[in-house]
């Protein structure tokens, strides 16, 4: 059993890691940047590493993380280019690759950067990582302790800025690799996306692991969507069995803006992602989707808090888990409707498919509503594959394993099909329908 002590020790260890890095790595940074880091670590120290006693962490235990001592890379480590090959998109858009949070020029390609899009790297320019306030805006109802840790310790934070009315056609691709060969390594990937008024861009963000030793990635993505702007964001976490990922996607939206963010989680010992959305302008529209296909003892926890602060906003949250082995899928979603957010239209669903005797699902879809003229619904289901549907397919001559595969693909497809970047969608289909054991028993049928 983990005791409260272990969590305290873990928090102390991260604070010590910061103290040491502040001397060694951050010393040359300007005072205002250091002030931001200091404030962030102070806030983290106050909040600590969350334990299961924290209502937000009721079903996800960070005990294995708390028991591990991590080191942080000083300089970019060399990674075989083959590691990113499977992740590549076929388009001509720009690509940024980070290894353990450090920008790796040799793997990146900024050639396709369209006009109107700028990328600022905190270490490569004078633009240091002063948070644009997105995170603060998104955490006033409930803090995110580890996101504060990210702010304190992030190195090559990237900011992608899409200028007013710029229509960026090709997806901008950001790859974060968590790499460890011997000892456990922690990294703090950080990405900020700023879409100015009327801008439109598609961002693909992949988090993957390299090497055999344990990794912990504490990631933070901040997205500020300006008036009438549109951001389409697709994120994946594809981890090996001894890696932990604790990420947050914080989004603020201005008037009439649109944001889409999808997350697909594959593998990993623990993957936790918090979506925080603050709808701050009338008529904003937000669409979040998530899919986890898990096996063995993998654990995925999706937490959402969508805050409707202004009238006439729409939000849709659709999350699905396919759970095999002794895996565990957790969902906790909250739509919060402020008193001023009249005419809110919110829909949230979570569906879980249990494929094995030892898989577990926990789901908490929540509504918190302070305005009267709203229409909000949520739904949750937990169940196994429909026997009648399997029988129906078998009666049409489809072998059982394939029938199961077809049904699982149909279930997951409702999330995958919505991913607009075709190369990513196809790759995930390929990967997922090769990963789930229930599907392995038969060659995948043609789509």
């Amino acid at each position, binding site marked *: 059993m983990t005791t409260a002590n272990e969590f305290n020790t873990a928090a102390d260890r991260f604070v010590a890691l910061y103290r040491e890095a502040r001397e060694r790595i951050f010393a040359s940074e300007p005072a205002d940047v250091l002030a931001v880091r200091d404030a962030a670590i102070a806030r983290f120290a106050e909040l600590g590493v969350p334990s299961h006693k924290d209502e937000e962490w009721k079903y996800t235990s960070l005990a294995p993380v708390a028991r591990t001592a991590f080191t942080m890379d000083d300089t970019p480590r060399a990674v075989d280019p083959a590691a990113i090959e499977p992740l590549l998109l076929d388009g001509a858009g720009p690509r940024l690759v980070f290894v353990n949070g450090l920008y790796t020029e040799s793997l990146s390609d900024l050639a396709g950067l369209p006009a109107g899009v700028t990328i600022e790297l905190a270490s490569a320019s004078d633009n240091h990582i002063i948070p644009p306030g997105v995170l603060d805006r998104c955490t006033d109802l409930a803090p995110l302790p580890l996101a504060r840790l990210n702010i304190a310790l992030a190195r090559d934070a990237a900011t992608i800025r899409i200028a007013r009315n710029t229509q960026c056609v090709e997806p901008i691709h950001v790859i974060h690799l968590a790499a460890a060969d011997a000892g456990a390594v922690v990294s703090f990937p950080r990405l900020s996306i700023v879409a100015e008024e009327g801008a439109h861009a598609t961002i693909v963000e992949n988090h993957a692991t390299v090497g055999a030793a344990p990794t912990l990635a504490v990631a933070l993505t901040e997205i500020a969507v300006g008036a009438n702007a549109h951001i389409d964001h697709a994120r994946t976490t594809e981890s090996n069995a001894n890696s932990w990922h604790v990420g947050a996607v914080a989004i603020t939206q201005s008037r009439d803006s649109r944001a889409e963010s999808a997350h697909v989680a594959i593998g990993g010992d623990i993957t936790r992602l918090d979506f925080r959305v603050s709808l701050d302008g009338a008529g904003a529209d937000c669409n979040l989707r998530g899919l986890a296909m898990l096996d063995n003892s993998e654990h995925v926890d999706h937490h959402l808090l969508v805050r409707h602060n202004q009238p006439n906003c729409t939000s849709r949250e659709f999350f699905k888990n396919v759970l095999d082995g002794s895996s565990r899928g957790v969902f906790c979603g909250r739509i919060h409707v402020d008193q001023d957010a009249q005419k809110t239209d919110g829909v949230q669903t979570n569906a879980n498919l249990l494929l094995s005797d030892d898989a577990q699902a*926990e789901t908490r879809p929540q509504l918190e509503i302070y305005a*009267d003229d*709203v229409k*909000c619904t*949520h739904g*949750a*289901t937990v*169940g196994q594959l429909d026997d009648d549907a399997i029988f129906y397919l078998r009666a049409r001559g489809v072998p059982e394993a394939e029938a199961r595969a077809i049904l699982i693909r149909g279930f997951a497809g409702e999330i995958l099909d919505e991913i607009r970047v075709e190369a990513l969608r196809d790759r995930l289909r390929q990967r997922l329908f090769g990963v789930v054991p229930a599907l392995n028993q038969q060659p995948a049928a043609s789509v």
Partner: protein
Amino acid sequence: MTQAPAQSNPDARPIDAAGDPIESWASSEYKYGFVTDIESDAAPPGLSEDIVRFISEKKSEPAWMLEWRLKAYRHWLTMTEPQWPKVAYPPINYQDIIYYSAPRRKPELASLDEVDPKLLETYEKLGIPLDEQKMLAGVAVDAVFDSVSVATTFKETLREAGVIFCSMSEAVREHPDLVRKYLGSVVPYSDNFFATLNSAVFSDGSFVYIPKGVKCPMELSTYFRINAMNTGQFERTLIIADDGASVSYLEGCTAPMRDENQLHAAVVELVALDDATIKYSTVQNWYPGDEHGVGGIYNFVTKRGKAAGRRSRISWTQVETGSAITWKYPSCVLVGDDSVGEFYSVALTNRMQQADTGTKMIHIGKNTRSTIISKGISAGRGQNTYRGLVKINKAADNARNFTQCDSMLLGDRCGAHTFPYIEVKNKTARIEHEATTSRIGEDQMFYCNQRGIRAEDAVSMIVNGFCKEVFRELPMEFAVEAQKLLDVSLEGSVG
């Protein structure tokens, strides 16, 4: 909002529900706010081992009962008040509360004729005549006044059927074996802060035992009345339905209007053995406090049923319109294979009322089924939270749960919140949860108005329709009562 021009007729009724029909719905009167002037025996305020001993002695309890109380009291000292409910109230000073108050009376009552006429009058005024001649046919009543049971009707008729229906104090003396076996078997003395407090100081309550194979010949009912000032009410109810038995039990509650908050921390335990059915219905109308949030009852109640036997069934139906704060989660622990748990609830918060209520369905046995229907109505500055847990344990093959959780908002200063928890550890489970939150439909209002129905009546009609699935689970007399209660709350809602 727009309206036709030249809208000058003062009698013209607004068509829209948004503002007027709802705005002033806080103005209705609480009908049961009177105080009965009666002498009472009371303990001094405060809580200590001595008070626990005092209560036990007053009730001439056997030593084992006192020991149980003391064990609870000592455990309670180590506990802290729960902070997780979505309700806010100033800290309670547990040393200011009077833990025992009873109308002064003769030690033993031979018949109802010996009950203090003032008490009989009180219950008459509440619409609960204790005179068997005047009573609703087919309903036996146990009347609990402050801390003690003052009368139980139809005892003879029930005795003939073998049914035991008496006050808890009497049960401790007369049926110690049953009480010892089942008391605390569903809600242990260490369960939670308020239940543990209750275990230490519970003063009275009802006890029901339905023997094997007996279908209880009439509805059983307890009517709770808080009268004395600064008094907490801590009643404890225990209902056991033996193999193949069935019973329907009703509970009603009111309290005088007082400016201080009063604590009501009750515990209800139900045990259903093989093929037994217990249906427990509550119409809770404790004084809710005034429109500024002054006064009202803190209703912190633990209710739990154990569907212990195969094919047993426990059904909770509640209509909650009163109390300043409600904190209760009538639950079902489905232990027996093929057992069934049900929860039907209407919770209304108006004025400054806060409710954090819902249920827990714990599926342990195989083929267990549960249904949750919750209807929350928020008005005024009321805050209404549904909180519910559906838990499917690993061995609970083929468990089924269906949850429907709807909220209706009337007015723009109230809140409606839904916090379900679903935990599934068995793949054969099938869980469906649906929730909606909306205000009264503008199109529905217009449709009713167009048929000549005034806004106020339309609101009442639509709200009652919204609650229909719950009302139809109530026994007839209570269903009518419940609808009336909602209508009273709707009085004066058209501006």
